[in-house]
Structures are given as C-alpha cells and as structure tokens.
C-alpha cells in the first residue's frame, strides 16, 4: 500500500508501468544469463541438427528455434521440418 497513492492523479494511460514491467523481465533474463544465453542457442541448434541427422536427413535451414521469454517461465519452440517423414510424394 502506497501512502501517497491518494495524492497521485489517475493517469489516462499508464504506459510507464508497462515500460517498467518489460524492462524487469528483459533485464532479469539478461543478468542471469549474461553472455551465456547468446552462446548456448547456436550450440543447442547445432546439437539438435546433429541428433536428428542420425535418423533423418535434414538441412540446417530445416530447424527453426523460437523463444518467448516470460516473467515466470520462458518457452523454447523448436520446429524441425522432416521432409522424408511425409507420406511418399514425388520429389520436386
């Protein structure tokens, strides 16, 4: 409870709070991982490609890594296009 909250006028658009929230989430990620995060994603991608290639032929372009950093949790989405796994089709 803010003692002075009654003094403050209600603001029409409270975008400052949005700015603060966005920064807090982003900086929490940046501080905790430092430079580590920037480097683990390319390595992770390389390892995934290598692992999949043991079973199916895929190109480097066929792996798509997406990230959504959240407040409580982040999600990592990895899409792999498996050409060979589709039902038999005439090659193009």
């Amino acid at each position: 409870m803010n003692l002075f909250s009654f003094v403050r006028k209600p603001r029409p658009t409270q975008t400052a709070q949005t700015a603060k929230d966005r920064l807090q989430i982003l900086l929490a990620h940046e501080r905790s991982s430092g430079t580590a995060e920037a480097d683990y994603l390319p390595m992770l991608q390389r390892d995934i490609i290598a692992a999949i290639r043991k079973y199916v032929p895929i190109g480097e372009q066929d792996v798509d890594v997406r990230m959504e950093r959240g407040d409580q949790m982040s999600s990592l989405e990895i899409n792999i296009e498996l050409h060979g796994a589709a039902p038999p089709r005439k090659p193009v």
Partner: protein
Amino acid sequence: MTTEAKKDAPLGRVIVITSGKGGVGKTTSSAAISAGLAKQGFKTVVIDFDVGLRNLDMIMGCERRVVFDFINVIQGDAKLKQALIKDKRLETLFILPTSQTRDKDALTKEGVEQILAELKAEFDYIVCDSPAGIERGAQMAMYYADEAVVVTNPEVSSVRDSDRVLGLLSSQTKRAETEGAEPIKAQVLLTRYDQARVDSGEMMTVEDVLEILAVPLLGVIPESKAILKASNVGTPVVLDEPSAASRAYEDAVSRLTGTQVEMRIQGERRPGLFQRLFKRAS
C-alpha cells in the same frame, strides 16, 4: 500461406537511418518508417546496426523473442531466416536484431554485403538503423545504402554532425566509390521540432536547417509525447493511436515511396482556450 501469390520482384531498396549525433531519434524513426512501409504493403525488414547496444528490439516490442542476431548470421552460427523475427502486428514486417554481447568489429563488409544481398532478393525495403558516431558501425550501416535518411534535430551540434554524415554518404559508400553509379539519395528528417519554440525564436526553423544542409526535406516530426508512450509499450508510433508524430511519420513514409505529400508541420494539439484559462486559474 494461402494468399501469398507471387507478385513482381521485390524492390530491394536499402535505406540507412543515420545522423552522426547520438540520441536524435534514429531508432525511433527506423521503427516508425519500417512499420509505415510495411503498413503500406511493402515487405520490409529493419536491421539494428548498433552492435553491442541492442535497442531496436525494445522499440519494436519483440525483445523477448530474440534468439539469433545479425552477428550470428555473419559468423555462420545461424541462417538469416532463423534470425529474422516476424512482427506480430504486420504480416509484411520483419526485424533483424543485433548482438548484445559483441562489438562493432564483428561487422565485416563482406558479411554485411552478403546479408543485404539475401534480403534484397526478398524484401522491398531494408531499413538500417545506424549507431551514432561516424566510426565503423555507422560506416557499415551506410556503406551499401541506396538512400539515406539523415535524422536531424533543430540544434547546432546535430546540424553540424548531419553535415559531416552527408559528406561521408557522398564519399565513403559503395555508390560513391563505384564509377558511374547514381549517388545515394539523401534526405533530411527533422525531428523533435517544437513549433512554439520556433515561433518564439528559440529554435531554428525548417528553412534555417535546410539552408545549411542543402538537401531535400523528407519530413518534419514534432516533439511529441506520443513517442515516449509508444516506446514504453514497444509499439512503433505509426502503429499506436494516431498522433501528430504518427501522422508526420506516415507522410514521410509516403514521400519515401515516391508519393507527393504536402509538407505540413503539426505540433502536439494545443490546449484549447478554456483549458488554458483553467490551467492559469489553478
């Protein structure tokens, strides 16, 4: 994937947003111009050249989704397609973020050239958000440009730096070095313009600035509260609620695409007489 009919070849035009002086509004303008172009249906990508000081992602509101960056692509750690972030609001808008951990030396002419060549094959406009200064980062951002938007504030050091940058554009770029090539088309975008202060003689006028720089005017963006608000929420100002600034950016974008738009200088809406009287009384 349904209605993506193959249309004509992309325009593939590279536009650098540059200034020399820092903090004049390059990133704000890069975000607004790229979103404005995409809004008009042009397939557009905006690249952050400010290596080590990533900020465009915040202004575009995609900071939580950065996986790979420009430098990863240059160094072969990721494919271009994997580093491009698709905007959630506009189908035609993409962002190529920069590295937060490397420095400007990671930019190589060959690397930049190759990425731009790939982008030119797919995009109508490639907007390059230059870092401040006239060193390596800024030079890399302008080197392959077809057009330049020189962001200038009506203030002495900004105008002086813009003049420096105009000099570099006409000497230290690919087009300048290529025999017979058409020079970079450079235009001034005057930002943070405050009509009230111009009227009171405190601030240089549009004419004053143009007389000194002697290049065409792309637009005049007023000093506006809408800019801070848009950056707070991570929305390019032209995608936010209409404001004097968003209208001015939309006009500038239309001029960039070759449409004739009358130059109008708008300020933030002046308070009405009633409000002014009320304010004075309180």
